[in-house]
């Protein structure tokens, strides 16, 4: 008995240095946010293995980064969270010498992301999208009438309208910053306001529709919209398209649509960044540079239906994606999109408390 054990131990010890030499990169990205073969291609080309982990909310990324020693080499927070995370020193500056593919980036997008990351020193956009409304076409028109206007936040924020949808299920993102921005915008207030009166007004609006909301969750609605469990969700553009594709594939006759409501919607940027304590900095740059390659960026956008921040990728993107006004909004719709700035920690405290009140009634 003793000999095999000794051999096992010896081989284990021998294996450890070999493992340490193996190249890895630890990536923490949003769920359903990458083409199926991207990681395999990266590993095949570079020999770097990828540990790929996913999240569904900015809050949890921030919690892990603040805890420190997250072990991640590449994370993909949204701009309005990234902004304050950079200020808190959670990220290291990008070594642009190792990212030649930065030249492929869309200058317009780079200009917009510079609002979160001055000079684009710490992060580079992966995808961008909008936070709007996804709905089950048949279920919603049946309840609101065939000629009802569905490109409006009234669907969610008008108590009378949403009450008609309560029986088929309404879901809202568990993302207070984005929900309050939408509510403020609907009320005709500044979505980036940090005034307490505005916060109170938004809370009042949310409480007035709260009885008709079945749950608050940031990824559950993808499945539920697709299989008819709910009929309206405030959600991320590409996630609603996943639900749409799943519904079409299931062939149960469920048709899902996404709308950027006429009142306007949040335009966000999900950005690659390298944590200050990342263990594999070189591999992180290699991964980001790979993701910025036009063919890879286009393949990802064609798969997940989010707009790419990569300008050179545009000509490789499928026409049905490129010409979809819900993914690449035309100028008149784009004019109504608003950016979200980082909130101060003081305001965040008020915001999260208000959010708990909305969610739990306490």
């Amino acid at each position, binding site marked *: 008995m003793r000999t095999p054990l000794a051999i096992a131990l010896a081989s284990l010890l021998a294996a450890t240095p070999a493992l340490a030499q193996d190249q890895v990169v630890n990536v923490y990205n949003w769920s359903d946010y990458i083409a199926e073969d991207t990681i395999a291609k990266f590993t095949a080309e570079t020999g770097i293995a990828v540990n790929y982990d996913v999240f569904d909310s900015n809050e949890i990324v921030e919690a892990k980064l603040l805890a420190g020693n997250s072990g991640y080499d590449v994370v993909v927070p949204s701009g309005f969270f990234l902004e304050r995370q950079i200020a808190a020193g959670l990220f290291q500056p990008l070594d642009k010498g190792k990212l030649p593919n930065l030249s492929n980036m869309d200058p317009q997008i780079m200009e917009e992301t510079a609002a979160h990351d001055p000079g684009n020193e710490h992060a580079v956009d992966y995808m961008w999208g909008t936070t709007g409304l996804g709905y089950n076409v048949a279920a919603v028109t049946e309840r609101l009438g065939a000629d009802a206007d569905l490109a409006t936040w009234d669907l969610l924020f008008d108590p009378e309208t949403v009450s008609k949808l309560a029986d088929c299920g309404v879901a809202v993102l568990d993302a207070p910053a984005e929900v309050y921005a939408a509510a403020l915008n609907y009320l005709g207030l500044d979505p980036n306001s940090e005034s307490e009166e505005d916060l109170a007004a938004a809370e009042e609006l949310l409480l007035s529709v709260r009885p008709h909301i079945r749950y608050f969750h940031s990824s559950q609605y993808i499945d539920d919209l697709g299989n008819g469990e709910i009929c309206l969700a405030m959600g991320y553009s590409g996630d609603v398209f996943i639900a749409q594709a799943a519904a079409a594939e299931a062939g149960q006759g469920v048709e899902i649509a996404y709308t950027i409501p006429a009142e306007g919607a949040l335009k966000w940027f999900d950005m690659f960044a390298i944590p200050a304590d990342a263990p594999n900095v070189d591999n992180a740059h290699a991964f980001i540079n790979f993701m910025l390659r036009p063919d890879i960026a286009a393949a990802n956008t064609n798969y997940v239906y989010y707009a790419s921040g990569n300008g050179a990728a545009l000509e490789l993107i499928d026409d049905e994606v490129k010409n979809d006004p819900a993914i690449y909004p035309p100028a008149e719709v784009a004019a109504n999109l608003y950016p979200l700035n980082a909130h101060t920690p003081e305001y965040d405290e008020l915001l*999260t408390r208000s959010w708990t009140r909305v969610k739990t009634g306490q």
Partner: protein
Amino acid sequence: MSTLDADLPPPRQRPWSLIERSLAGIGLSGRALVIFAPALWLIVFFLVPLAVVFGISLAVKQFGRPPYTDLLTAEDGTVQLTLHLSNYIRLFTDALYVNAYLNSIKIAAIATAIALLIGYPMAYFIARTQDPWRNILLMLVILPFWTSFLLRVYALAGFMRGNGVINNFLGLFGIPPLVMMQTDFAVYVGIVYTYLPFMILPLYTTLVKLDPALLEASADLGAKPWRTFLSVTLPLSMPGIIAGSMLVFIPAIGEFVIPSLLGGPGTLMIGRVLWDEFFANTNWPRSAAVAIAMLVVVVVPIMLMQRAQDAVVERRK
């Protein structure tokens, strides 16, 4: 026999004698070592982390890494200790926390009562069954543990959702779908289902030891079956009832997975509040205070139940 013995290597005398001698050299006997190991385990993995959590609960949130202030600050050669009680004060001044504790206790208590009502007859039946059926039934009680708890909760969601198993069945009779998911009802189903084995097993162990002669004696003395149950079976199974209830009630108070997967946004439970404070609000100090307070909330009923159980055992003597 003797030839076999000859083949074996000679038994080595006291393989640990060297270690034992060197330990004795620093004043440690084998007995001390036996006590020392679990004590060390408890200190390293329970008391130290608890002290860390308690320490964090006395800090305040800041945006940075770590996301809380230092308790000790050194400035101009003086070390200053700053303890903030604001997190604990907030637990009392903000109705959210008190209500979450009370609601958790309420949900746990109701779920425990339901588990007892369902579990008692099952345990009684299993205890009265003869082998080999008894072992098979016991096996069936334990069987769910062979799959992940998380998967079983997801499976329950599959039963209760709008187009799930139950509603599809009701649909066959033209009954419109019931909304079961994201309600308190679903949380009760989840907790009772998950913790039922913890109720059945201690009940079974007390009921199986019940001497049938006592029941016969009771019948001989003219007692009706329900009378026998109330004055013989029930009192004698009290230790099992208390142990089973504790095993269900205590983990149910702090339950997080079941209310977050099956419950609605209004299903207020302390486990969810704690998760939100930690992950959504990144407020470590307050979530630490919530955790410490939860420990107190849970320890009090444990002590009361322990005392009740001791009293039962005492009376038995």
